[in-house]
């Protein structure tokens, strides 16, 4: 009894649903989508990320740097610059600037606090970056 009732209901709903048509969106529906797609594609080619210094420039820069260092280290190069006045190393010693720095003693707590704050600072950069990226993301 229950089964035949279910069957009848099933048939009835089938008939009811199939006697209607699907709902139609607006006439310009397809046109709107295609124009949105073209707009998006034009935009995405315009906003493609281009690094300020391209990979080839980085490569060239790296080679130049390495070559320069190699020349300085291995090449027979006279490093004394004739037109610079000779720096009196005695004079530097007299100032004792570096020595003065080593006299500063910070309490341990201050050092830990400083390290902690630095850590938070770096962590914050990561969070801020993620937050801003999600805010300006195109979806």
């Amino acid at each position, binding site marked *: 009894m229950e089964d035949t009732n*279910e069957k*009848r*209901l*099933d048939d*009835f*709903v*089938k*008939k*009811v*649903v*199939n*006697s*209607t*048509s*699907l*709902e*139609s*969106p*607006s006439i310009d*529906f*397809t046109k*709107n*989508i*295609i124009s*949105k*797609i*073209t707009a*998006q*594609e034009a935009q995405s080619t315009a906003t493609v990320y281009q690094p300020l210094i391209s990979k080839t420039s980085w490569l060239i820069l790296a080679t130049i740097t390495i070559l320069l260092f190699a020349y300085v280290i291995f090449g027979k190069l006279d490093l004394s610059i004739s037109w610079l006045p000779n720096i009196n190393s005695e004079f530097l010693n007299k100032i004792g600037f570096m020595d003065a720095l080593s006299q500063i003693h910070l309490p341990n707590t201050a050092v830990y606090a400083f390290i902690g704050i630095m850590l938070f600072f770096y962590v914050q950069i990561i969070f801020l970056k993620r937050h801003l990226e999600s805010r300006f993301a195109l979806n």
Partner: protein
Amino acid sequence: MSQKTDEHYINKVLGGESNAFSLLVDRYKHMVFTLALRILKNREDAEEIAQDTFLKAYIALKNFKGDSRFSTWLYKIAYYRSLDYLKTNKRQVETTFIDISEEYNITSMDNALDGLEVKERAGIIKQAMQELPGDDAVLITLYYFETLSMNEISKVMGIPANTLKVRLFRGRKRLAKILENNLEFENIQSYGRH
């Protein structure tokens, strides 16, 4: 022309012919729009979400593996986009509360519907669908109109097939009850007119 498969057009789109996508849109826009409307109950919102669905599908097309049908993949996007839309807009869709334990008479309903003009009948059925909770309406549309299998609907809605069977069972009853109520209302109104 229309016999060409979805894959044919998908490959065309992936090959750079973005205009081929409009044929896919034309093929599925009615169903996608209907599904969105079933959930959102508002034509403007449904239009927006349907557009959004196709845009999303266009962007994600290269990720479409083809292990399910293109249509079910598209319906899934539409379904989830609609639900997301409701969630982000915190909108409560108004649907009537239906006591499905009440009895209804299929034969008399059937006769009453048959007695109506085609246009009027379609209007009453659409109204009933509108009053049905979104999930039920989507399920009934996919099952009876699109004749998808329970497994396919399960993929679209992300609900196990067994649960869907129970829901379909209840959804049908709700629809019948709503129809009966609306038909009675219609009758009272038409008495008033004569």
